[in-house]
């Protein structure tokens, strides 16, 4: 599916322009990102080893971007950052899942594949995260104007919700979240690559 997203992105870029990328990839993108919810559940029930604390923010942010921003606010779909976002995500996923797949099927993966798995994030994380942050930031005026997903007082439950302010809070979470995730991946890289050298 990630292959399909990448293929469609590149094809659209070649044949027309970046404005049409979202329309070309919408279906596989929404499906792939929503299927990633399974990964959180697998982590929760202990099917895979990766901790929920590292998968939850990653997948949560992707679901938020795909459904909460791009799907909900069509104005954002033609933005150039959609292209960099989709390329970063799909490349990461292709390498990640093919790595897991090989390990699952044969018990090991070639060393260059291991290196890719633990090195591409050095570039793809910054591009992906800055695309995410940029898209949320540029969507803010639309969020504010549309009042979509907002709940206003008064009501019996004494509850209110403002999607615009929620987006600002989300942006705030990126400030400590991104360096945390990046350093987590760096330590993973160090561990995985030094282990493979020993063997």
């Amino acid at each position, binding site marked *: 599916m990630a292959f399909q997203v990448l293929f469609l992105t590149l094809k659209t870029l070649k044949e027309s322009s970046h404005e049409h990328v979202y329309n070309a990839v919408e279906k596989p993108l929404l499906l792939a990102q929503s299927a990633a919810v399974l990964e959180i559940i697998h982590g929760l029930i202990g099917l895979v080893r990766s901790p929920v604390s590292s998968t939850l923010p990653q997948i949560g942010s992707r679901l938020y971007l795909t459904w909460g921003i791009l799907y909900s606010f069509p104005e954002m779909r033609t933005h150039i950052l959609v292209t960099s976002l989709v390329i970063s995500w799909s490349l990461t996923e292709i390498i990640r899942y093919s790595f897991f797949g090989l390990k699952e099927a044969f018990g090991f993966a070639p060393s260059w594949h291991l290196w890719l798995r633990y090195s591409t994030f050095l570039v793809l994380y910054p591009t992906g995260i800055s695309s995410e942050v940029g898209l949320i930031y540029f969507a803010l005026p639309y969020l504010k104007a549309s009042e979509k997903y907002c709940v206003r007082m008064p009501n*019996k*439950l*004494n*509850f*209110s919700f403002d999607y615009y302010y929620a987006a600002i809070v989300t942006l705030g979470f990126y400030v400590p979240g991104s360096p945390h995730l990046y350093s987590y991946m760096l330590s993973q890289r160090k561990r995985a690559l030094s282990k493979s050298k020993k063997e």
Partner: protein
Amino acid sequence: MKVNIVSRSGREFIKGGLELNDSATVADLQEAIHKRTKKFYPSRQRLTLPVQPGSKERPVVLHYKKSLKEYSDGNQNTLTVVFKDLGPQVSYRTLFFFEYLGPLLLYPVFYYFPVYQFFGYKGERVIHPVQTYALYYWCFHYFKRIMETFFVHRFSHATSPLSNVFRNCAYYWTFGSYIAYYVNHPLYTPVSDLQMKIGFGFGIVCQLANFYCHIILKNLRSADGSGGYQIPHGFLFNIVTCANYTTEIYQWLGFNIATQTVAGYVFLVVATSIMTNWALAKHRRLRKLFDGKDGRPKYPRRWVILPPFL
């Protein structure tokens, strides 16, 4: 006795080690380390016995009351201990005080001051009776907690890392403000008079029960802080291991029944899950400690925190 102090990476932490009396305790060693390093006072130090490299066993933590002899395998004259800096420490009293001070001061700000102007609400605010009662209830609750911190609680650990102060204050202060914002809101919708009375009434009863639970817990430990873990008994403790948490949770439920805000219920769920984790750990520890073998009493069958569910 000669004591070598190494860091966790195995490097010598204090040059030449320390020479101590044969009758010295771990506390004496910690004092000696403090004297030499100046910076690391005893509660900042974590001293363990070295573990074999590669072994997955947990290291033995040295207890400050025991004598060094007990850790040195009989008559050997040297002992190697591993030093870890726990970071700056504060007493639990300080930690609790600052945690509870936030909600106690922030909540009235939303009630008394025209803060809602800054959120875009103009004009006069009509205050419902339930909002006034909620203010008294809230302030009484946090006042009670601060008083208990100073005059009732006895702490098994003397200190907590300084970083916990920031984490816990962020938790209490944000949630306090979040709930205060909705309960004192100009567009607040009150519940029926009966529901309010039931909620506050039930909540007050639970707060009093909670206070009594804290008195019982205090009396389990002797005044010098020793006594270790005991089987709590009497009052609600005969039914539930952590009756203090049970009553705390139910008193928040009472507050929420009376004020009915989503914010309050969110806090209730979060607080309940945190306390449930603590309660499960405590229940497990007591069951392990009092296993009924070798003359130790057997821990009775009890609910953990929330009868009749858990």
